């Protein structure tokens, strides 16, 4: 019955606000009252909107910049709990806003599907995600020069974690090293060269066998099961979202990496935008700084508005600026001026920095409105 009243405000008010009003109003509220509430909310909403000509960019920059000067080199630790070292604080913020291709500590937060997230078999699930090589499953590798052969003493306990037998490991190695004869006994694998080989090659082969990939997800060098709320999640060092998503027990709707570019290529630019916001907010929260998300949203929007990730630096969004003078005033002025003169660029003096330079009123705030005269009157 009241749906149509709400309908009239669709488009005028954000859906989230309409939903909130719907929930907060008692079901018994009269038509008239709903109407009154909505119009009051609408008025309030208009009041909170930024006005045309407000310098939202600079306000966002100041709102983020000033508190971050107070960021401390203090992170919180829990005694006795093994932790992973993740970049945080100002270095991480710089990393995110610069949209760095390689970040210092790539990590994933792997959420698990319904039955698995209760914590049962968590260790073995985590173990299966960890990237392992042959080296991780043998207690020793010896090189017998007299035969010649390479003997692997298999650590069966370790192998049991991934439900493998010695035979399976032997076959796996044989697949990668087809020119060798691989034989498996109860707890040993012997590898003999097919044709006669010199010892030097054999030594190199031994090293290659050591590094042969066995199980898990590539790049994941560390796993750490953590309790997050009611469920268990797995934190990793090193990211490989694509492979993780293919695992059946992974909740792909919530699992996330902190690598902006990986998220962008796999989940799209909107996900990358959300990641910028989440990562920044996460750092600011741990530092106890309270910055309105909308400032960070503006930064994230700016970084992603072209559909591609762009850092806030001279190779990113600054390069996209229309004004030659604005670009020149940021970094490497000589390069920008010379290149602009080669193609004959024109600076329309439409933005702030250029107008400050030539000492003209900036087109913001009181400098924005112009006098318009209607001639026909």
């Amino acid at each position: 019955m009241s749906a149509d009243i709400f309908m009239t405000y669709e488009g005028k008010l954000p859906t989230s606000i309409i939903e909130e009003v719907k929930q907060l109003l008692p079901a018994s509220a009269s038509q008239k009252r709903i109407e009154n509430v909505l119009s009051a909310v609408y008025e309030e909403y208009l009041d909170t909107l930024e006005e045309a000509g407000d310098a939202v960019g600079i306000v966002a920059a100041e709102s983020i910049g000033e508190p971050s000067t107070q960021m401390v080199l203090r992170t919180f630790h829990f005694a006795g709990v093994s932790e992973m070292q993740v970049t945080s604080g100002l270095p991480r913020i710089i990393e995110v806003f610069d949209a760095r291709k390689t970040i210092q500590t790539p990590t994933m937060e792997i959420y698990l599907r319904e039955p698995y997230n209760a914590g049962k078999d968590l260790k073995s699930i985590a173990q299966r995600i960890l990237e392992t090589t042959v080296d991780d499953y043998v207690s020793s590798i010896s090189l017998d020069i007299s035969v010649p052969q390479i003997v692997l003493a298999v650590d069966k306990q370790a192998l049991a974690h991934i439900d493998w037998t010695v035979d399976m490991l032997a076959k796996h190695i044989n697949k990668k090293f087809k020119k060798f004869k691989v034989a498996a006994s109860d707890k040993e694998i012997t590898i003999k060269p097919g044709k006669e080989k010199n010892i030097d090659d054999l030594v190199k082969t031994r090293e290659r066998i050591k590094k042969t990939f066995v199980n898990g997800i590539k790049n994941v060098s560390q796993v750490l099961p953590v309790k997050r709320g009611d469920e268990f999640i797995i934190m990793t060092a090193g990211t490989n979202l694509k492979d993780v998503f293919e695992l059946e027990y992974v909740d792909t709707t919530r699992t996330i990496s902190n690598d902006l570019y990986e998220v962008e290529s796999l989940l799209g630019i909107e996900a990358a935008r959300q990641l910028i916001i989440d990562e920044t907010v996460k750092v600011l929260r741990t530092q106890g700084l309270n910055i309105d998300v909308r400032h960070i949203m503006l930064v994230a929007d700016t970084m992603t508005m072209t559909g591609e990730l762009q850092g806030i630096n001279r190779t990113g969004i600054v390069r996209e600026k229309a004004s030659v003078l604005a670009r020149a005033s940021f970094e490497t002025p000589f390069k920008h001026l010379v290149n602009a003169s080669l193609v004959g660029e024109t600076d329309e003096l439409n933005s702030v920095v250029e107008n400050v330079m030539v000492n003209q009123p900036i087109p913001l705030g009181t400098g924005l409105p112009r006098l318009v005269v209607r001639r026909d009157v």
Partner: protein
Amino acid sequence: MTEVYIDHKYAGTVKNAEDFVEKILTERRIGKISIHVNVLYERDMDAILIETSTGRVVRPLLVVKEGKILLTQRHVDQLHSKELSWTDLVKQGIIEYLDSTEEEGALVAFDEADLTKQHTHLEIAPMSIVGLTTSLVPFGQHNHGVRNAQGAKNQKQAVGFYAANFYNRNDMDLSILYYPQIPIVHTIMHELSDYNKHPSGQNVTIAVLSYEGYNMEDALVINKGSVQRGFGRSAYFRPVISEELRYSGGLTDNITVPDKETKGYRSEHEYRFLEDDGIVYPEASVAEGDVVIGKTSPPRFLSAMDEYNLETNSRRESSVSLKHGEEGIIDFVLLTENEEGNKLVQVRIRESRIPEIGDKFTSRHGQKGVIGLLVPEADIPFTASGIRPDIIFGPHGLPSRMTVSHLIEIIGGKVGALSGRFIDSTLFESEKEEDLRKELGSHGFSESGQETMFNAVSGEQYIARVMVGNMYYMRLKHMVANKLHSRARGPIQLLTRQPTEGRAKEGGLRLGEMEKDTFVAHGASLLLKERFDSDRTVVPVCERSGLLGYYDARKRKLMSPVYGEDSEVSYVEMSYAFKLMLDELKSLGIYPRIELEGKY
């Protein structure tokens, strides 16, 4: 076999390391080996390290044998009667110098009572764990270490009586305290360092009290009567130096009263203090702009014609005068020669500096502050016995900084003043707080150091009792008179036409990048423009070529640099810095073309 290294170079091996080291030590103590040779038997490496090189930091310690120091009461008596000296003790092996290497193998006791058979050395004085200036902080053992360091740092900036021959010297930025006093609360270091011969502060009466909010944020409220009686009064000296330089071609500067033909001649008024030799007379009261040393220099560039009439009128004025805001009395004139034999004139200007609002003072505990208010003596709160403090110190600087020694000095100073004796406050060895309080009680004062006080304005008694006592205060060399600065209009830089920078050049206060951003954030567009109008210029711009035009005065017309009269030229307002940038772009080979558009 133990390896032996001399100055980290392998020298050989010895069989019995312990004996070898012992032998070196004994020989050093009897004077056979230099006292600056240090040895260490490094057991983990099984090596003996011998150090002989220069530049090692060494420190003296008392030698301990069998749990006893070698220094006896007889030595001490002989030291007192001057029969023995420090070097004698070192020669006799009673005191020796250890470097960081030998210290590794030494067990040093802090106190004589702690000595055991294992100890090898004893600290001469516990105080020696800190340096000279830090040990000048009284009762330092009651403080956080950082505060002692800050207290020491502040003392270095104190105005005092730094050298008895100051009158014959000509130092930069020099202040001399009129009435320096020996601190009542002193330390051994004050005696050892001859502090009493060159003190740098005064003993004052202090009350720990708020006063009308004028001692917020570490500020001090000071009794005007005390200032008038000479508290903190100092003389400030600044030198003015000029020399007769020699130039190629036998030309020289001339220290003289410039004649009126000189280029850049100022005005007779500004030269009025100069005597016939071109230098001011002592005790002249000079102010901003007055010439102190008159000087003329030969012209910078000589044209062919000028060489024939050099001495006539082409000399330049290059006198030294007082800069903006400077004033004083000529104290001292020195005429001499420098190393190259050029005539050198040094003039010293003296200024009396009476403490004023904004001048900086400190106690010896890192409790520095500036004067917030000078109160007429009649309005200073007084105690029941009628004492009016010289300084009213705000209590809020104490809880967070925890400078307990500051409070103990107040009590100590009070006891010293009442008993007529000096109070020993040497680090770790000071008189006990308890004893001081008892002595204070024996004089009929409260042992807490607190007294009943009265508001001098209303006559009412304060509800709380106030801590009153004596302590040593020093004036610091930072005085507002040297820092006060403001500008509305003033000199500009030649290149950019923007205001100069810095107080000495009467410069402007820069509205920087971040300050600019705040204007932008507020949308105060026109205010921002006005702020940046300091280098505003109006230049003619040719609309056809986009280059800056010029005004041809003969034709009374605006001209284009490319098309001459054949173009529209309009005046455009811009910052001079931007005009300069356009010129720099042109010098780069870039053609910056300005396109004009109607403003409305």
